[in-house]
């Protein structure tokens, strides 16, 4: 999954909705084997950035490459490279967890191996007990885990997680952290948005701050420097974490 190209390379990336600019010339480089935590106030463009990286929205300007593929022009060719978790689960309430996972496994072209791959990710995320329950009937924490399982079913080299801690309990958070660590060791990369400083600095090896549609700070993440990071954040955004 690693290559000479960086995982993400954005230069002057812009996105407008109608006349409203959300991303205003954003620059970002992310190599392989790295987890970037993205902080920023609401409305800074975090979700829009992830949606653009995921190929859900077309950039209005600038250049964006994912694993060397032009993600602005050839969005179809980056879809299998990314795994996405957003606020919504992307699961069907009236299908069981197993059915949901099998459906997405088919969509990602896993074919006959889809069933065993679904069982494998479910096992890793502690979903074994609820595989045959309808999504509607399981707890929010379990739904969130199932959403995560859905996102990684096709072994994407780039993970995009939008505030994944929302709705996750302690155990699930631990499962997510170990999944991210494994992912990184395997050479994969991830971008995680969050509001939790300690958590964010722990899972990431880099931390960036997004403000007004631009990356205003980008540096190494160190969980022991949370207070320093809070100060930096306040300097750049005028807000508090």
């Amino acid at each position, binding site marked *: 999954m690693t290559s000479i190209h960086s995982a993400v390379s954005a230069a002057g990336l812009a996105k*407008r*909705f*109608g*006349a*409203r*600019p959300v991303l205003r010339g954003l620059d970002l480089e992310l190599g392989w084997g790295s987890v970037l935590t993205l902080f920023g106030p609401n409305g800074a463009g975090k979700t829009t950035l992830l949606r653009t990286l995921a190929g859900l929205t077309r950039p209005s300007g600038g250049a964006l490459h994912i694993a060397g593929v032009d993600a602005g022009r050839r969005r179809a060719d980056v879809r299998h490279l990314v795994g996405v978790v957003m606020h919504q689960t992307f699961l069907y309430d009236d299908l069981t967890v197993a059915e949901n996972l099998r459906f997405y496994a088919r969509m990602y072209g896993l074919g006959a191996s889809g069933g065993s791959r679904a069982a494998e990710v479910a096992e890793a995320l502690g979903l074994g007990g609820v595989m045959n329950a309808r999504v509607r009937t399981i707890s929010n924490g379990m739904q969130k885990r199932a959403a995560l399982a859905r996102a990684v079913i096709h072994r994407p080299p780039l993970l995009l997680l939008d505030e994944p801690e929302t709705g996750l309990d302690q155990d699930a958070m631990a499962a997510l952290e170990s999944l991210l660590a494994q992912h990184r060791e395997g050479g994969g990369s991830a971008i995680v948005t969050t509001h939790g400083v300690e958590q964010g600095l722990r899972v990431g090896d880099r931390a960036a701050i997004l403000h*007004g549609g631009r990356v205003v700070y980008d540096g190494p993440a160190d969980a022991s420097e949370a207070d320093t990071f809070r100060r930096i954040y306040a300097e750049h955004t005028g807000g508090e974490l």
Partner: protein
Amino acid sequence: MTVRMSLLGLSGGLMLAALGMTFLYAPTDAVLGISQRIFYVHVPLALVGFLAFAVVAVCSIGYLWKGSERMDNVAYAAAEIGVLFTSLMLITGMLWAKPAWGVWWSLSPQLTTSLILWFLYVAYLMLRAYAPPGETAARYAAVLGIIGFIDVPIVYMAARWWRDLHPNKVLGPLAEESALEPSMQITFLVSILAFTALFAWLLAERTELRRQETQLERMRYTYGQA
């Protein structure tokens, strides 16, 4: 600016000429009498309305192809003017139908097609109003602009097989040989030119206005809030 001014002058001049010829030059129809003169307004409105929808379709394809905002502005403007012209065409048609056929409305192929066409592009304007603003509305409208225009000949076929009591068209593939006297033909042609020029002028004005609206909106974000 100069282009729009000259289009205004051209359509104004042609419109006056068409009006004069309609009432002073063209002879009164032997069968239909004075009411036939509405023909010089009604049919050009229909033809130019249809031209407007063709412009919508072409610019919709152009917009989806190139993503150029200008194409979208032209498509939107053409749809508005097309609906205006088609509405006037339906009204003048009814005004003419009453003295000519004794009824306001009939389910002839042309009338049915025109009415469905009118609904199609009213739906187009509604879609633009109700869709999320910006690119989404533009993309949705472009898809409808293409689907709608492809639909028109199918609607016409269906309506034609369905009922056929409308007088034949005087132009185009279904034209009857020398249906009109030469003086009537000349008046008709001048009238078509006048309405086409009017359409071109309105289109240029409306497109420019849309461009300015978008620009103003952008400036509001750049210099205003945020």
